């Protein structure tokens, strides 16, 4: 009796689920996490809007005044009047809010809210602009995804006279047929690593990229399982989702670039190529625009911005006077960037990572539906995970790959869990075991010391994190109110609005 139980004991003990139930569960998870991500992205957008809105207002006033100067007063008069009235109202609202904050004694929690609500109208132009920019950025990601991937991964078309590659083309066609999508294009990367990825605009214009190592080292059923995973991901609409998520970063990048315009020469180039790419739609141009726009998210861009202030060092007297207005802009840009970095790293990163992992689990469940062969998928995933398996240039495209190990040796660790866009192979194998895969080893139980250490660690970390979040929230609110107020006052002063 004990003998017959032995193999059972080494197999993961998980509750059996059908792949339909697993899919339904992951779809629900997608909705929940998408909603959370959307909310957070909107909040970050609101923060950046506090600077972008005044900038947009200034731009709009300049254009309208220019129109009036060249004698198009008929066109410009009415919008100018409406905009002035609105700005005046906002100015009053912001002023009232500042007065209220400054008043002693403060009873914020009772009556601050109506003031905030009135003044928050000021964020609307910035957020609307953010939405439009996000849509444009999403289109750019959709349009350039395949081109960028093929270029950075140095992928090539499969050779028809090569038996393995011909077989792979067959497998892709079979799987696409089972998933009910048009057969995706196929590209090969010449590397001994094992991995596969999908890129493209939609399930109708998808490209599957497979490493040569996968062909050489996996057998037909394992290859089929991995391809099914990729094709299932394509069929579930992950390509569009990936573009939407990446577009959040590009849009934030462009908004921050907008703040940088006065202090960083490259910002003009970035905005220029973004506008050109939005009009032309050529993939290379779109890829370039994305790269240039996201430069603003790079901490190095802050250093570039402060270079303006060097003028004050070179010409102490005249330089200082000339640089003074820029100092405010540099400060505002630095504060905004700091906030956006903090939000992206500490708040947005986690739900975003979890959302993408949920999609991977969904793809696994759908792959099981397509092949009815969870065992092969487990074996194939183990094959990927046994080494460092992102091909050269794949670091920025990690999300598109079936599995992206986050440590150089390829093994996954809990400590790194939140950084990788794909779940650990052990976790995926455990879910596949729940869907019927046999011979999945139970996850090795951790030593007692690990639990003690992690409990103590989290007891210490939790209050620190709480304090950190409170600090970030406080900083955010202050920065938002004061940049919005300062920006609006400047715009109002320049264009003479009372």
């Amino acid at each position, binding site marked *: 009796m004990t003998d017959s139980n032995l193999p059972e004991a080494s197999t993961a003990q998980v509750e059996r689920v059908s792949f339909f139930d697993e899919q339904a569960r992951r779809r629900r998870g997608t909705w929940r996490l998408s909603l959370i991500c959307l909310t957070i992205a909107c909040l970050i957008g609101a923060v950046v809007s506090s600077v972008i809105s005044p900038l947009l207002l200034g731009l709009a006033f300049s254009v309208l005044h220019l129109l009036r100067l060249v004698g198009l007063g008929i066109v410009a008069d009415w919008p100018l009047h409406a905009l002035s009235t609105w700005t005046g109202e906002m100015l009053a609202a912001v002023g009232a809010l500042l007065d209220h904050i400054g008043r002693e004694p403060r009873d914020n929690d009772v009556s601050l809210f109506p003031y905030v609500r009135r003044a928050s109208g000021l964020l609307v132009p910035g957020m609307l602009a953010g939405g439009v920019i996000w849509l444009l950025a999403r289109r750019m990601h959709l349009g350039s995804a395949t081109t960028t991937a093929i270029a950075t991964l140095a992928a090539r078309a499969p050779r028809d006279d090569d*038996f*393995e590659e*011909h077989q792979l083309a067959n497998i892709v066609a*079979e799987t696409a*047929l*089972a998933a*009910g999508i048009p057969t995706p294009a196929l590209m090969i990367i010449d590397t001994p690593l094992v991995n596969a990825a999908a890129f493209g605009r939609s399930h109708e214009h998808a490209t599957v990229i497979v490493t040569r190592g996968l062909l050489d080292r*996996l*057998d*037909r059923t394992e290859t089929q399982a991995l391809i099914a995973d990729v094709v299932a991901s394509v069929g579930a609409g992950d390509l569009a989702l990936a573009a939407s998520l990446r577009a959040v970063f590009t849009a934030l990048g462009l908004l921050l670039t907008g703040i940088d315009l006065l202090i960083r020469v490259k910002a003009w180039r970035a905005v220029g190529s973004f506008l050109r790419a939005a009009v032309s739609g050529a993939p290379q141009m779109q890829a370039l625009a994305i790269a240039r726009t996201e430069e603003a998210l790079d901490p190095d861009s802050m250093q570039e911005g402060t270079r303006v202030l060097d003028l004050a060092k070179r010409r102490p007297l005249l330089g200082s006077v000339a640089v003074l207005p820029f100092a405010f802009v540099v400060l505002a840009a630095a504060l905004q960037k700091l906030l956006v970095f903090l939000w992206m790293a500490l708040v947005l990163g986690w739900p975003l990572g979890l959302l993408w992992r949920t999609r991977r689990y969904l793809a696994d469940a759908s792959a099981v539906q397509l092949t009815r062969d969870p065992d092969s998928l487990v074996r194939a995933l183990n094959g990927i995970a046994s080494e460092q398996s992102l091909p050269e240039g794949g670091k920025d495209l990690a999300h598109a790959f079936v599995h992206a190990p986050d440590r150089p040796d390829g093994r996954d660790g809990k400590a790194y869990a939140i950084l990788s866009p794909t779940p650990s192979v052990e976790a995926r194998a455990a879910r596949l075991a729940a869907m019927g895969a046999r011979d999945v080893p139970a996850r090795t139980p951790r030593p007692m010391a690990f639990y003690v250490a992690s409990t103590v660690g989290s007891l210490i970390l939790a209050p620190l994190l709480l304090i950190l979040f409170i600090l970030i929230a406080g900083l955010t609110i202050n920065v938002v109110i004061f940049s919005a107020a300062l920006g609006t006052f400047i715009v109002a002063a320049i264009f003479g609005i009372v």
Partner: protein
Amino acid sequence: MRWGLLAIAAIAAYAVILFNGLVTRRNRVRNAWAQIDVQLRRRADLVPNLVASVQAYMTHERATFEAVAKARARVLAAGGDVTARAGAEAELGASLRSLLALVEAMPDLKASQNMLSLQEELASTENRIAAARQFYNDAVLDHNNAVGMVPGNLVAALFGFRPEPLFEADVASRALPAVQFAAPTA
């Protein structure tokens, strides 16, 4: 009066949605059938090629070749009739399997490059047929559920939507194939 009009408008809108849903499902079934058709034709097209490369090696197996040829002719004759086609295809599949079993017994033929790629094509085609059949049957199930259930059945009866036949897997192909179809592993 106004509420009555509103109710009629709502019912009409609902009927339109139901009708469009039925049309979508029926088109999906037709498209899925077209996919199966493409793959079955692909298999039928492979047959002469296969026979040509095998025939020289085994002149004494006339009966097998004749069975394959007969099954292929029946497939081509069946056309778009799902039930007749399914039967003919099952027969062709079975005769191809017995032919490949013969190949299995001849090591030098089996190892030839031509035979390897033919086997891969056949294996892939069988997989595609299975995949297309699964997709077709899922589409049919969905369609038939929509046609058969209240309230879709009222709209379906009104506009002549009928349940579609499933493409049944034959008994022979349900059993484990005697031939190892998988091409040599890397």
